[in-house]
């Protein structure tokens, strides 16, 4: 089967299942492949690869290359890079997309050094340039103050891609595709390292802090009472956000000072800041000016917050929250 010039996606297996970022890359890979009339090939390495292959086709791959070996029981970047290199050299894909997880970055870095290939890290977008076979990669620089466009001069073009950037394809259990098993010779290679134990941290155990949260939901006087605040807290937890409050709620004794967002409390810098029932006093404004995007919901159309929010909705926060929660959950599917 001719697979030269195809778009490959390295599908990371977590407990035998394709990881979230890999599914997102199958979505982006599909788009890249369709723009050039080539195929999307999933690359699955290690324990459970054969079992997961059909689902990877369901998620948008046209075919899957499976590499299994006794030495590939647990992820090991050294051995996985060797296995990936062997099939990449054989099939000569045009591009290999790798999710920028810790393991994915290790695999990409080793693969680059092993095959002498250029590697672009943590891309947030990519597309084929003009009519060429060159992909223009876009990645942030200087903590996102700038974006850079990068070309890779070697083939296959290799990049790690950040998670939560692209959308995966809808699963289609009826999709058919070829599953190719490739043997790999890892004799003479020592694993050099081993994962001795793994302790899962349940999502509930992770206390999302205002300092490093990607999304912060903050409650203001519009919550009405402590019960209202609890509903906002539950909403924040449901969407994986940290929960802050405005100064009046701390003054009322409904929340501790550590949770106050504002210049007299915590200055925050999330990707998305959702202000619910917050009027937007100047001290609050100064505390959120590093937020990348501010969304405000308030019943008062003249609330100052609407002047410095990127997007505003005039309305009842308690009616907005459940819809937003449902919409975000839907997107994750």
């Amino acid at each position: 089967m001719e697979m030269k010039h195809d778009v490959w996606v390295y599908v990371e297996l977590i407990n035998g299942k394709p990881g979230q970022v890999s599914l997102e890359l199958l979505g982006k890979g599909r788009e890249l492949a369709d723009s050039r009339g080539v195929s999307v090939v999933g690359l699955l390495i290690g324990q459970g690869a054969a079992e997961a292959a059909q689902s990877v086709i369901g998620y948008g791959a046209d075919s899957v290359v499976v590499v299994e070996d006794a030495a590939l029981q647990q992820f090991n970047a050294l051995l996985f890079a060797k296995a990936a290199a062997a099939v990449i050299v054989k099939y000569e894909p045009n591009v290999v997309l790798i999710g920028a997880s810790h393991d994915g970055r290790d695999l990409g870095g080793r693969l680059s050094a092993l095959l002498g290939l250029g590697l672009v890290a943590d891309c947030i977008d990519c597309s084929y340039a003009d009519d060429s076979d060159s992909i223009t990669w876009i990645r942030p620089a200087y903590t996102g103050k700038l974006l850079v466009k990068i070309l890779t001069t070697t083939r296959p073009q290799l990049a790690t891609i950040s998670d939560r950037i692209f959308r995966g394809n809808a699963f289609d259990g009826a999709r058919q595709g070829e599953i190719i098993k490739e043997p790999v010779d890892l004799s003479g290679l020592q694993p050099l390292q081993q994962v001795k134990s793994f302790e899962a941290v349940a999502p509930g155990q992770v206390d999302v802090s205002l300092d490093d949260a990607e999304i912060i939901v903050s409650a203001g006087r519009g919550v009405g009472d402590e019960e209202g605040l609890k509903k906002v807290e539950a909403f924040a937890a449901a969407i994986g956000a940290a929960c802050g409050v405005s100064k009046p709620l701390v003054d009322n004794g409904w929340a501790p000072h550590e949770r106050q967002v504002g210049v007299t409390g915590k200055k925050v810098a999330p990707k998305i800041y959702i202000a619910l029932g917050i009027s937007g006093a100047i001290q609050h404004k100064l505390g959120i000016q590093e937020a990348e995007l501010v969304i405000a919901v308030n019943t008062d159309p003249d609330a100052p917050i609407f002047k410095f929010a990127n997007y505003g909705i005039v309305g009842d926060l308690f009616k907005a929250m459940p819809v937003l929660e449902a919409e975000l959950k839907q997107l994750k599917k």
Partner: protein
Amino acid sequence: MNIVVLVKQVPAISDIEIDAKDNNLVRVGAPTMLNPVDLHAIEAALKIKEAAGGTITLLTMGTATAGEAMRDGIAIGADKGILITDERMAGSDTLATGRILAKAIEKIGNVDLVLSGKQSTDGETGQIPPAVAQRLGMALVSYAESVAVDGSVLQATRKNHDGIETVEASLPAVCSIMETANSPRSAKVRGKMMASKAVFDVWKLEDLGLDAAEAGAAGSATKVTEVFPPTAPEMGFMVTGDDEGQSVKKLVEILVSKKVI
């Protein structure tokens, strides 16, 4: 224990402003510093040296003055520093940089452990530790939250897939360190004196047995073609609908189309 710590001089990030006219960096005031997380790698090296003995060598690559960043490491106890600098290395990407650093570590010889920060604040790729490990045939534990050496075994913990894994690697090994791994000690007066007087070895391409085609832009496989600022999101846009539910749905559509979520 022969420990090498890879360090880097970076622009002082808080001082970076973008020139609206040409999208170039405007560097105001003190322009450079030691990549902050590198201090944590040096602290990890100091702890290992205290337990097992040995030497800590700082290794950096950059401009002719990039060695200055190593003085912060000497001040808290690193033994010496080596600066790799050569005009023919300008524009090296991670492929070329990994090649150069691996050669330098080979030249140092008999290295048991290579430590580094998780990534630099200017490049932000985290690709150098795996590249160096691959070229030297070493184990790699990246993004370590804790690290210790027991005999010939490196023990470390790292976050991975919604959990913490404990990893054992045989030495020699490469290990990249997170900020959360430790609190770097402060420099004492004597250390600062030593640091100000420290003289670093300077290596060029020839010292590493590399030729110009293997370094700099010539030895790289990626090319930056454009630098541009991200588009600022619009301000004060009111999303309207018949009710809250409809407004929220419209808002989510906008956010999806703008790839915010």
